[in-house]
């Protein structure tokens, strides 16, 4: 399992391109179980949400799994109101994530 610790903002022009690049590189290097730790992400906008979805579909189309852990309240709220809780597998902690990856 690859754990990616992301921090700061995931917004247009800031963290979103970095996230896309990181996840794509992991997939290209053969990683198929990716856990995004968003504990230090205090802000995400619609572009950032789009990048999370893009990362998710990139991993899925390589037959992998992308999961999220440690969401801050703001990120959790946005994922909730955009109904993406039905898409993303949000894990309570790393240990649970390890167990949940097949």
């Amino acid at each position: 399992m690859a754990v990616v610790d992301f921090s700061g903002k995931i917004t247009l022009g800031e963290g979103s391109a970095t996230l896309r690049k990181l996840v794509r590189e992991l997939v290209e290097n053969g990683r198929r179980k990716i856990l995004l730790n968003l504990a230090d992400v205090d802000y995400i906008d619609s572009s950032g949400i789009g990048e999370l979805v893009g990362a998710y579909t990139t991993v899925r189309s390589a037959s992998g799994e992308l999961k999220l852990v440690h969401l801050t309240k703001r990120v959790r709220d946005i994922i909730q109101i955009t109904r993406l809780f039905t898409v993303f597998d949000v894990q309570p902690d790393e240990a649970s994530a390890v167990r949940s990856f097949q």
Partner: protein
Amino acid sequence: MAPANQRLEVTLETQLESVDRAENIVMHVAEAAGFGEDDVHKLGMSVREAVINAYNYGNAQDPQKKIHLVVEFEPERMIVHIVDEGHGFELSDVPDPLAEENLLRTSGRGIFLMRAFMDELAVRRGPGGGADLVMTKKLPHRVGDNGQR
């Protein structure tokens, strides 16, 4: 509390930096108007999304075009306009990002977030024919003002 009928107008370039700039301006104004941290964040983010919309779609990233930010106060509410110089659009034409078939789209959530975070959202035709995105949020009542302003 911001006095009634106060108005602020800023002309922004069609560039990525305008997104942060507009967000910061509105957050400062909202803070000065007495909004709490959560509402200041919601107002800032709604303006951010509106300016991204104007930058990407309205003005199609054309540096010759401008984005106009207007903040107005009425006795009970703060009104923010983001006006672009594009061709305008109808809210009813914006796909629902919560629909099953749109959940995995990587864009198209901006308008939805503005609606979720503001009390009212409308799209009018701006003076130059572009979109005038009008967002409204009720002003907070201060403790001890008994609803009087």
